[in-house]
């Protein structure tokens, strides 16, 4: 599992967010705003939960690496994916 259980990608009024649902509440930030590139990566991560390479294809490798690091720093990503 790459994202902590209960984390959802939500689009509201054209803005993308990673939102911690009840299952993840208190363990990660409630909400993180995503840039357009990050949102694409997050979407790919959620859709292709076991395939890092496929997620990385959505952006450049550098972007993906930076994004994964950011998520890891926030506690959204488990170690196994990195």
């Amino acid at each position, binding site marked *: 599992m790459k994202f902590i259980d209960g984390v959802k990608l*939500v689009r*509201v*009024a054209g803005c993308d*967010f990673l939102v911690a649902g009840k299952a993840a509440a208190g363990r990660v930030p*409630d909400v993180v*705003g995503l840039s357009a590139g990050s949102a694409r990566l997050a979407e790919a991560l959620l859709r292709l939960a076991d395939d890092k390479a496929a997620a990385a294809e959505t952006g450049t490798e550098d972007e993906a690496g930076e994004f994964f690091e950011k998520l890891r720093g926030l506690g959204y990503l488990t170690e196994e994916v990195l």
Partner: protein
Amino acid sequence: MTAGEKLLIAALSDHLRGVPKTESGEAEIEEALEISRGHGLAGIAFAQLGGGNGPDRERKKLSAIGTCAVGYVRRRENYEELKNAFEENGLWFVPVKGILIAEEYPEPALRVMGDTDIIVGKNERKAVENLLKTLGYRETSRTGDTGSFENATGSLDVRAGDPAETGITVPEDASAGEILPDRTEHFVYLIAHLANHIKETGCGIRQFFDIAVMTNSGGIDGEKALELLRKKGLEDFAGNALCLVEKWFGTKAPFEIAKCDDEVISALEGETLKSGVFGRKNEKNELLFSARNATDGAGPVRLFFRRLFPPYRQMKMFGYCGWLNGRPWLLPAAWIVRIFRCVFTRTPGESWKTATEPFTRRTEIEERASYLKRLGIPVDREFF
């Protein structure tokens, strides 16, 4: 109306019509955003107007919308959990107000809400309360037939009532789980709820916007709505409220309104804009009991005695008199409890001040009663 208020109304109207961005001048944008916070409309305002004039406007916008996103995800999760639990336990419930209306908003997540409101059968009340306990809810207060519950992630208002009281019809063979209300009955329920809010505390822009959203979506049987409103004595009030909704948001009422009284609409508009999300004015319900009675021509002496010994319909709404509901013969006992409460929780000066209000605040009481009467709100009736 101030420039900021005008801009906020324009932003809401644009949002409803799918206009992605509302044009505004720098001067009024901050005021509009500030007002939107007080009315629980910050998400829509920030989405339509951006984050204001400051260098951190993008962050402010994301923060306002992100807060709505979290609230939405959590309340939908709570709601799904509730639905499943009711289904599994063979109980039904009817969702009303925000949890349903939000889904009709152009962006459901932007419709901020506090409590989820549901109606359950009067006979199932105990079973529902037991079920809620197993879901980690605890009762926080009770007013008449409505209990408020909360758990770690959400709060719930549960109304136990039969269709004759709530105006929401439930099929006799109702299956377990969620039962969506008839659209027209729900519309009337919203109008009655709005009237109740105005009567009790005041109301904010969002409650009118909810009605605009619902009428904009269509599917309301105008004739049936009018008939139901007539039965509740709310036909004139509905006309006034829908005139204001049309004035602000351009949405048409589902039935023909006899006459829009500009003076009344203007008074309602003024109070609503200044009231905040659920009303700030008259927040402590100070004049309600007197205003209820003042409209039937009662003088100060009669009002004074009604203050000392309120009628059953008022007493049963007091949180500490939940046991009175459905047992009017216990009214004298409730009066005794009330007197003891006054003796032990209030100073003699406070009690005397409250009891003598019909004399000392007569002008205010009459003004409030006259305002409610002009709006078409019968102050001595329950609407649901």
